């Protein structure tokens, strides 16, 4: 299998790479992609049925986000990778091993939602034990914060790296530049894998007319970091590109800018209707065609897989509907860690 990139990096081409991915891995990837996709479909349905107030998520990005999650050096603390994600990262969470039912809980804002206890919108993940720092809604702020975890990792001589991800339109915020500047300081470079998932849209605003750069990845060049733009609709391309980028960041302890062209299969969010769009590539469909052609999985197997997950999540959504809502009085919980802490008083 050979990897297609829309552009080769200036620092050592991410070109043809003949290391093929083991079939088991491909099948696992596929399974995660199916789960992630079905999860998003379930969340959209929940929204439509009044079991959630807002939907935003990542259908169309699974071919990148799933391999990303699979390749993360997962764990808690600076020995492991930190993930500064945004609201389209369910594929990554599924690949990390998150229970999709927890996403339904956040959608239904139940007290049992492990990410925010019913406080935040769906797809706003936070998993302390896997270093998934809280996803917050303001676009691009994660790019200003991620250098902090990276500096800590580098100082500790850790194998862990910092991964930050956001959209294309958001790169217009100064925080994206902050990330480039801070991570590339000569002599103080920090191990950040800087990912931009480019679906060529802000909410309704097309890429055209908003960008002077041909590619977002070009913006890394001035800072001397390796940059590449890849086709994120192909999970194998993604897997290799992520691996290569991660290896560089882990070994060199320096930043790497990876731009990923992806689809936005249900529009921006429920605010724009969340309907399936037919004019963009569907990475899952394409990948399934490949798997079938290679004889790795039959259409029937895949249909059954999908039906099974769909049924499971449908049932789960009914159970979640019955789970308790947070109490109003809990708004005062967790304003401060160690609520009554006063230095010198213990």
């Amino acid at each position, binding site marked *: 299998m050979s990897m297609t990139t829309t552009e080769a990096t200036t620092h050592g081409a991410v070109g043809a790479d003949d290391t093929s991915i083991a079939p088991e891995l491909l099948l696992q990837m596929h399974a995660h992609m199916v789960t992630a996709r079905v999860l998003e479909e379930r969340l959209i349905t929940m929204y439509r049925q009044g079991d959630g107030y807002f939907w935003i998520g990542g259908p169309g990005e699974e071919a990148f986000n799933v391999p990303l999650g699979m390749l993360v050096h997962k764990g808690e603390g600076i020995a492991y990778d930190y993930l500064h994600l945004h609201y389209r990262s369910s594929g990554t969470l599924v690949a990390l091993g998150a229970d999709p039912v927890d996403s339904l809980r956040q959608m239904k804002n139940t007290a049992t939602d492990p990410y925010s206890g*019913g406080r*935040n919108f769906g797809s706003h993940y936070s998993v302390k034990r896997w270093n998934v720092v809280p996803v917050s809604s303001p676009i691009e702020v994660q790019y200003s914060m991620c250098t902090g975890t990276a500096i800590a990792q580098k100082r500790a001589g850790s194998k862990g790296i910092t991964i930050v991800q956001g959209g294309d339109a958001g790169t217009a915020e100064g925080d994206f530049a902050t990330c480039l500047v801070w991570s590339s300081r000569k002599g103080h470079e920090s191990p950040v894998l800087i990912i931009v998932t480019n679906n060529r849209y802000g909410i309704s605003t097309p890429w055209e007319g908003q960008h002077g750069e041909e590619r977002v990845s070009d913006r890394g060049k001035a800072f001397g970091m390796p940059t590449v733009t890849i086709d994120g609709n192909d999970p194998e391309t993604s897997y290799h590109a992520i691996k290569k980028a991660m290896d560089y960041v882990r070994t060199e302890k320096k930043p790497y800018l990876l731009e990923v062209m992806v689809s936005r299969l249900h529009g921006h969010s429920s605010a724009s209707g969340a309907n399936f769009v037919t004019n963009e590539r569907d990475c899952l469909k394409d990948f399934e065609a490949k798997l079938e052609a290679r004889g790795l999985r039959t259409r029937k197997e895949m249909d059954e897989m999908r039906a099974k997950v769909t049924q499971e999540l449908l049932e789960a959504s009914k159970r979640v509907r019955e789970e308790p809502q947070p109490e109003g009085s809990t708004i005062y919980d967790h304003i401060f860690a160690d609520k009554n802490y006063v230095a010198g008083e213990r």
Partner: protein
Amino acid sequence: MATVVQAVRMALHVGEDRLGVTDIFGEDIGPPLGGAFTQTQGLRTAWNSPLDERGIIGTAIGLALAGQKPVCEIQFCDYIFNTIDLLKIAGNTLWSSNGQWNVPMVCITPVGSGIRGSIYHSHSFDATATHIPGWKVVMPSNPLDAYGLMLSAIVDPNPVMYLLPKALMRTRALPEELIPGEPGDDKALSKMIDAPLGDRTQWRAEWPDTPNLFVPIGKANVLRQGEHVTVISCGRLVREAMRASDELRAEGVSVEVIDLRSLYPYDWDAIKSSVRKTHRVLVVNEDTEITNFGEHLIRRIVEELFYELYAPPRLLAGAFVPGIGLADNLEHASVPQRSQMVTLLRELASHEP
């Protein structure tokens, strides 16, 4: 019966048509969407900016310095907090240059809770905005004020912050709030000025002929005269205050309801007269309750009208918590509820010194 959002759009049309507005811009403000709330559909001078709030405010300042009349938008006030330094510059440029350069810009930003917006679509901005000198700050509570305050904001030679309550966007005018010139019929208006679903490239709005009707900045609206207690509010909570007053009327409690409309400059005369009459006052807003604009009003009331007061003035504001949670219980526990208004107003009204 225009909705608030239609009223804003009509006002912006008047602005670009005959009051000199040159640019209406922000994230998703131009075609095809015309604003996250449809507020800028069909406007000739509307354009999409990059996703960069600092660039939006900065560019608006630059346009204003160049003698243009920009109306910019921050999509949700939740996302304005990386621009406070620039807002301060917009507010201090005239002063710093000792009167040379004024900055005639308008900044629209949707505020407040009530759309189940969770942590980042429920913020208020009145405490922060009123703390920035050099700005005028307005907040409409109904379509007519939305229209008239926008026209006033546009012609004002100073920076004006236009806080637009998100939860009111689809609120329709009551009969007395009709904008002169709009067709009385909802469907007729919608057909004229709401962009159609689907392809909009050929669509043009057909604007009703609405007048230059200015709701003056700095003048409150005493929506209801009352005798026993005054409630001062603005934006979304004004109708809640009216309903609270309706409930209390049944109990024989007469509540004076003041819609501030302008937070800065605010209408001290209206407040003063009312406190002198009712001697009891409740200030209500949604922003969090520590270092809150309502506390300014109370401080001034206490300072200047202490001996008029028959009861301690009260504030009903947002809980001092880091966000408004998504679950209904959380939102309700975080922002002022009508039931709380009723209780407080009742307590105040029966309070004797």
